[in-house]
């Protein structure tokens, strides 16, 4: 599959009474953009705010981060199966509004995490601190609907808003164009590729229940067997996050759209390695599911005649078991494997980092210790609400100090210890 990504660089966002992209600045009419969001009867109130890099702004509690994209050529539309009809995406041309994101914020559950600071020490840890953020703050009706329904309403509102914003880039001339082409099995044995080591990416997706699920073409991933997807489909929004907890190491929709492992494997494709495919596998609660899914990972690796693989994780706890199972079974097939994870080594860094371990996991990349403490100074403006900061994971007694500063573990910061290797943060 061949996909062209045309990047439209966004250097700022402002409100006005019309919608456009002017000289790299996104202009939006917030009243107009919020209307369709409010059509969902579960959403009591919603409004937009803007946060730019370097501003003294704290966004919390963050649910999802989404990059606006629009499909300009080729079948399907962005976020198929979720807000567009099911149709195979991943070919043709897609425009990307680079440098910005739609951030959804607002409480879904009472202990929700997720802080993005636009300046100060916290800004070093979230990749979203460097983006121009259009924040959609939502408050849910108190009408007895379940948290699951709220999560879905918030998820859909975010995706639909990002798609609407993305439409503004449809007719623009990109600042840069990049082409990605995934090989078929036959093409992976072409003269240029056949002598290079065959490498696949194994992407683990959180699939644990209605508030921490991932969707692929609209299907709940916990109901799937391990399967394959074209990396370009992922770039077109085939995979979206339905996860509203675990701020530091959940993969937001933005992470999926900009999957760094996919990007870095493409950079080496045809040079030092042969990136033959992408395998997606789930992280279920039921142990037999874990065994089956990891068996399937190894089987697909076999089908692809892999020499090597990179496995990325999402979350901590029982997914450590999936990670180790995948690694062990791949290595047992002779597939040289590198895994990407993060650590929970305690605030003092002395505890064992993972909940599972095996000698086969001899090549590990870490996104850092999520338990390490950080002091976040007060910000001039808070988008969302601080009510929840004292309750978020990684906060503790007295987290929120009278002056508005927060002492907490890194796990409160959205995307801080990402397990796709999105960040430079590491630990030793």
């Amino acid at each position, binding site marked *: 599959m061949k996909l062209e990504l045309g990047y439209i660089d966004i250097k700022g966002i402002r409100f006005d009474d019309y919608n456009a992209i002017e000289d790299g600045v996104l202009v939006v009419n917030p009243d107009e953009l919020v209307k369709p969001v409010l059509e969902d009867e579960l959403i009591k109130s919603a409004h937009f705010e803007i946060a730019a890099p370097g501003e003294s702004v704290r966004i919390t509690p963050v649910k999802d981060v989404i990059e606006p994209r629009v499909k300009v050529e080729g079948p399907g539309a962005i976020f198929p199966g979720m807000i567009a009809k099911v149709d195979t995406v991943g070919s043709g041309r897609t425009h990307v509004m680079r440098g910005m994101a739609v951030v959804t914020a607002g409480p879904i559950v009472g202990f929700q995490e997720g802080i993005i600071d636009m300046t100060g020490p916290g800004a070093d840890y979230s990749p979203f601190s460097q983006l121009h953020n259009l924040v959609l703050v939502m408050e849910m009706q108190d009408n007895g609907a379940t948290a699951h329904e709220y999560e879905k309403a918030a998820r859909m509102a975010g995706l639909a808003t990002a798609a609407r914003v993305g439409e503004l880039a449809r007719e623009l001339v990109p600042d840069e164009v990049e082409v990605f082409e995934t090989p078929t099995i036959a093409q992976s044995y072409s003269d240029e590729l056949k002598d290079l080591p065959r490498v696949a990416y194994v992407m683990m997706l959180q699939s644990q229940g209605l508030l921490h699920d991932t969707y692929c073409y609209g299907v709940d991933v916990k109901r799937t067997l391990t399967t394959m997807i074209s990396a370009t489909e992922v770039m077109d929004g085939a995979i979206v996050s339905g996860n509203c907890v675990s701020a530091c190491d959940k993969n937001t929709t933005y992470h999926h759209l900009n999957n*760094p492992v996919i990007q870095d494997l493409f950079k080496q494709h045809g040079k030092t390695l042969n990136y033959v495919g992408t395998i997606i596998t789930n992280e279920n609660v039921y142990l037999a599911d874990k065994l089956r899914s990891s068996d399937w990972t190894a089987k697909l690796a076999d089908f692809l005649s892999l020499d090597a693989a990179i496995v990325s994780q999402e979350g901590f706890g029982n997914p450590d078991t999936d990670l180790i199972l995948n690694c062990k079974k791949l290595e047992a097939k002779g597939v040289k494997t590198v895994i990407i994870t993060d650590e929970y080594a305690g605030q003092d860094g*002395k505890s064992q980092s993972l909940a599972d371990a095996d000698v086969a*996991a001899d090549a*590990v*990349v870490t996104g*850092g*210790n999520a338990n390490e403490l950080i002091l976040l100074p007060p910000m001039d403006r808070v988008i969302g609400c601080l009510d929840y900061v004292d309750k978020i994971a990684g906060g503790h007694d007295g987290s929120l100090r009278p002056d508005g500063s927060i002492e907490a573990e890194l796990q409160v910061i959205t995307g801080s210890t990402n397990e796709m290797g*999105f960040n430079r943060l590491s*630990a*030793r």
Partner: protein
Amino acid sequence: MSKYKLVHYINQFYGGIGGEEKADIPAEKRAGAIGPGLALNQAFGDEAEIVSTIICGDSWFNENLEEAKKTVLEMVREDQPDVFIAGPAFNAGRYGVACGAISEAVKNELGIPVVTGMYIENPGADMYREKVYIIETKNSAADMRKAAPKMAKLALKLAKGEEIGASAEDNYLPNGIRKNFFEKKRGSERAVEMLLAKINGKAYTTEYPMPDFDRVDPQPAIKDLSKATVALVTSGGIVPKGNPDRIESSSATKFGEYDITGVEDLTAETYETAHGGYDPVYANQDADRVLPVDVMREFEREGIIGKLHNKFYTTTGNGTAVASAKKFAEEIARRLIADGVDAILLTST
């Protein structure tokens, strides 16, 4: 601004006194920097200097450990340095152990920050890496040119009271404390590079080494059991009733050592378990179910074993949580050997 003051510890060889034949010379102190200290001084620039150098024979240090530590500590105390620096010892085993031991003593007893340096396979590295900062060097003195700036950099940070970075940043051997830092490249790029190295059979370093799965060779069998002293050790948490040492049920900070002289049988009235890792009902009814003192006494009377050691040792670690038990085990083993025990019967739940 005045310079930070350092005291440097080196062995007889690097002190220019002589090789193995001079390894028994006692510690002596000289003013200023000598040998490797000159390279360190150069790396310090204007910020710090070595005010005195302690030269000590490796054999003398290791064979007179307590006296040697006392002597050297006194020499260091006189100069009140901002930082104490030892070695680097490269791959010299006894020198490495001495550097580790004296650095630990200076740190703990004088409260002065310390830096040493050695090769990762130096026996001193495993013994002291979790106790003091050990700069990783190559296995020969040819690495001094590269090692000196690394040791100097960390020493200066310690002198200034600056925060020490992760092991990979400040070049010390991993000390069991995970610490965050920012790499130059993002994780995915590091993963691809690591994968290519692994594919091509090149060296790479995992960012998170899995817990230790190493093995140890079996000790030879006991030739004559009827002459052997056998000790009981348990990870099942058996303690005298009331848990006099208050051993924690999990994540314990200590182990128990209890005298069983004259004890023939463990009963519900006298012993119990402090272990939090299993249902304690059965062990509390009869602790012999975990620590078989009753049958061991019978074997002792029958002459099957020479003697049941008069102390037993107990810990409360879970079967799979081995890391925490390591330090306890080293100390328990030291005491058992000192008491002339020949073999161990270790029970786990």
